[in-house]
Each structure stands twice: as structure tokens, then as C-alpha cells.
């Protein structure tokens, strides 16, 4: 039990450190939010003024914007470790490797959650969608989606962090893996906005939860190897 408590303290210390650095380098967070909102705006222009078309496309475009924004965020969180050899120092701490992964994941989750929380009302305003009674289901969908994106993003940011072309390699590796998450999140969002007429919202949320679980376990089990040089 003491071991678990110590691991939790390590994970919390890493998450707090990342969050603090992220908040102080505020321009990166704000830029990411603007970038994702801009993506939504440009998609809106590309689709034209047809309200029905925009409403149908909204869930997919929302999640694409969240995925693009999360790519930037997890890259930034690992960039902190590259500056002046911090990653080597982090790898040398005598702590459980999975605790380091969970700490980075927690920080990534918080950032992606903020991204989802901001983009949801933005998409509602831009595409003229009434969120109405769909709020609780949408919050659960964003929560589960943010966990999954942070889990995959943290892992692949660890894979690419020592690469010279990490900004290019991260999307190449991460995007194919998040395809099931994207599908489930878009379907769950669509079902939630439509009032769940087919009763399949629960199934999509379960798929999201299963995806999250598999990715967290896989990431926690293998992240330690990524820290070694």
C-alpha cells in the first residue's frame, strides 16, 4: 500500500509540474486553443452555409479539432523534458516507470479536457447546434475521449521525444491508433446530440472506456523502455 501511495505521489508531482509549466507558458495553451477553434471555423467555411450539413458534420469536426489540438499539447508536454536534458534526469529517478507515465498522462488529460471543454461550446455556436439535454452525455464522451487521447499521445510522445523529426513522427504514429477512438467518440457525440434515438450511446461509450483501459495498461507497461537510451 505504501508503494502505491508513493507511486501516486510521484505521478501527482509530475502532473503538477507539467501543469504548472504549461500554465506559465500560457501562450502555448492559448495558441493551441486558437488553432483548434480556427480548424473548426475553416471546416465551417469549407462546408458552406447549409445548416443541416453543418449539424451532421459537427461531431466529426469537433473530434478532429480535439485530436489536432491534443497532438500539439502532448508534444509540448514532452518538449519540457527535452530542454536541457530534463528527460535523462527524469529517467534517473528511482521511481516506478508506470508512475512517470501516469503523471504525464494526467497532465495530458487535463490539457485535452480543457481543449474539449472550450471547443464544445465553440462548435455549438459556429455550427448552430443546441446542446440542450445532451450535456451530461457529451461531458462523459469528452471525458472518455480525453483520457484515450492523453493515453495514446503520452505513449507516442515518449516514442518520438528523442527523435529529431518528432513533430512529424508523432502524428504519423498516433493518428492511425486513435482511429477507433475517433469513430467511437464521433458516434457517441452524434447519438447524444440526437437524443440517442437508436439506444446505441451506451455501446459507444463502453467502446471508448475499453479503448482507454487497453491504452493505459499498454502505455504503463511499456513507457519505461522509452525512457532508456
Amino acid at each position, binding site marked *: 500500500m505504501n508503494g502505491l501511495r*508513493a507511486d501516486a*505521489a*510521484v505521478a501527482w*508531482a509530475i502532473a503538477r*509540474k507539467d501543469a*504548472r*509549466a504549461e500554465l*506559465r*507558458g500560457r501562450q502555448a495553451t492559448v495558441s493551441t486553443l486558437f488553432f483548434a477553434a480556427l480548424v473548426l471555423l475553416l471546416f465551417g467555411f469549407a462546408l458552406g452555409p447549409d445548416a443541416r450539413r453543418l449539424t451532421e458534420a459537427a461531431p466529426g469536426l469537433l473530434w478532429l479539432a480535439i485530436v489536432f489540438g491534443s497532438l500539439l499539447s502532448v508534444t509540448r508536454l514532452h518538449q*519540457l523534458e527535452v*530542454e*536541457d*536534458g*530534463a528527460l*535523462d*534526469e*527524469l*529517467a*534517473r*529517478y*528511482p*521511481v516506478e516507470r508506470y508512475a512517470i507515465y501516469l503523471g504525464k498522462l494526467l497532465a495530458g488529460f487535463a490539457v485535452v479536457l480543457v481543449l474539449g471543454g472550450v471547443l464544445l461550446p465553440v462548435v455549438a455556436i459556429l455550427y448552430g447546434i443546441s446542446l440542450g439535454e445532451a450535456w451530461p452525455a457529451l461531458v462523459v464522451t469528452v471525458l472518455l475521449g480525453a483520457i484515450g487521447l492523453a493515453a495514446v499521445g503520452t505513449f507516442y510522445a515518449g516514442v518520438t521525444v528523442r527523435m529529431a523529426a518528432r513533430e512529424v513522427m508523432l502524428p504519423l504514429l498516433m493518428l492511425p491508433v486513435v482511429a477507433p477512438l475517433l469513430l467511437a467518440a464521433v458516434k457517441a457525440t452524434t447519438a447524444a446530440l440526437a437524443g440517442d434515438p437508436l439506444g446505441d450511446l451506451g455501446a459507444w461509450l463502453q467502446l471508448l472506456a475499453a479503448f482507454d483501459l487497453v491504452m493505459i495498461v499498454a502505455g504503463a507497461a511499456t513507457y519505461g523502455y522509452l525512457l*532508456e*537510451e
Partner: protein
Amino acid sequence: MPQTTIYAAPRTREQTPPPAVATHQLARLFGRSAALAGVTMRVAAGRTIALLGPNGAGKTTLLRILATSLRPSFGRAEIESIDIVARPDVVRRRVAYLSHATGLYDDLTGAENLAFTATMRSVPEPHAAVDRVLAEVGLTADADRRVRSYSAGMRRRLALGRLLLNDWAVVLLDEPHAALDADGMALVDRLLQRWHEAGVTILVASHQAERVTRLADGWARLDSGLLIETGGSGVEADAPDLVGVPAQVGRA
């Protein structure tokens, strides 16, 4: 009462204390070039050894391997008879390492950087420990400033301070005097002296040969990845045996 003289029994092989640091044919390749090629050495416990040699000699690679920051390509290394590849977790609790890079977080303050290390290394009473270390390295007045605004010398002092949060069996220092002013260099010398008196084994790589050899018991000189010469006391080396090691090793 007749005076009795007690003679020490001759030392047998079993009674010889194990070296604090031991490497056997240690080699590390980067691509096709060898940064370290068949280094076999033993450092006695409690001794301070200066690692000398020009740029690219392999000093940093040797220290990084011993610190578990880098895996060896061939050979093995032990800290207090513990294999560094098999039990890195144990080694990391016993070995401190000051590298070229400071490993600090620019957007955290000096105190926050130390507090983070204190948590990660389970330092008891971390707040008091952080305050004590800041005072020791002369950064109390700058504790709440972000590290981004520190000078290179202040960053180096803070990185050194991180090593003062714990007690160590072995301390590895890579160019500890770099970027420091006269006061900073004197601080490094004092720390070396203090660790030495506490029985800590120290390996210190430096281009300031005169300065570090004055503080050291012995020295080892590397060149092109080979350990070519040792002197003083506390360090022994064997010639590299490259038989059986891939042909790239040695072609630095």
C-alpha cells in the same frame, strides 16, 4: 605484563573489499563509431578519481553508463557489486550524477525544481531540505525566480544543489566547474572535499586537470574511447581485450 604485538593476517583475495565502481570491457557504440572501447577499471571505495582526456575521449559516455543514463553496447559495469543493467533501480538510489546538461525545468522556480527532485527522491522533510540546499549553493535570494531567468552559473549551482538533497555512495561529476565563477568553483571544491571526508566514491571528469588532480586520490586518462593510463591510488585498470567484440569497436 608482556607487550603483545598483534600482526594483521595477510590479506587474502576474499578479504579485499570489493571496488565501489567496476567495469569490465565496457564499450558503447554510436552508429559505427565507438565512444567507449573495452574499458576495464576498478575504483576503490571512498576514493576520488579524476577522469582526464581531450574532448571525445569517452569520459562523458563512461559517466553516463555508470549513472544508468546510457546502456552499454558491450561489457558490464557494477556499482558496489550491483550490475547497473540488471538493477538500475538500486543503482539510481546509490549514485548521484551531475551531467553537462542541468536537467532543470525553465518554467519552474529554483525552489520548485528542488522540491520536485525532493519528491521524486523521497527526501524526508522536503521543505526544510530545499531551504538548506538553496542556502548552501547561495541561491536563497533567487529561490522564487524562474530558472529561465538564471545565468548559466546559477543553473549549474542549482543542479549541484540537487545532489545535496540525498546521501550517496558514489558521485559522478561531469565538468562540475564549467560555467562557474571563482566562488562557484570554490563551492565545487568544498563539496568534493566534504563527500571525500564522508567516504563517498567520486569520479570527476574535467578539463581542469590541475584543479581536479589536486583534489583527487588518483586519475585515469582516456583517449578515443580507450582507457590508456592510470595513476595515483584508488584506481586500477586492465588493457582492453577487443577479441570477440565487433570490429567497429575501436574505430572511433
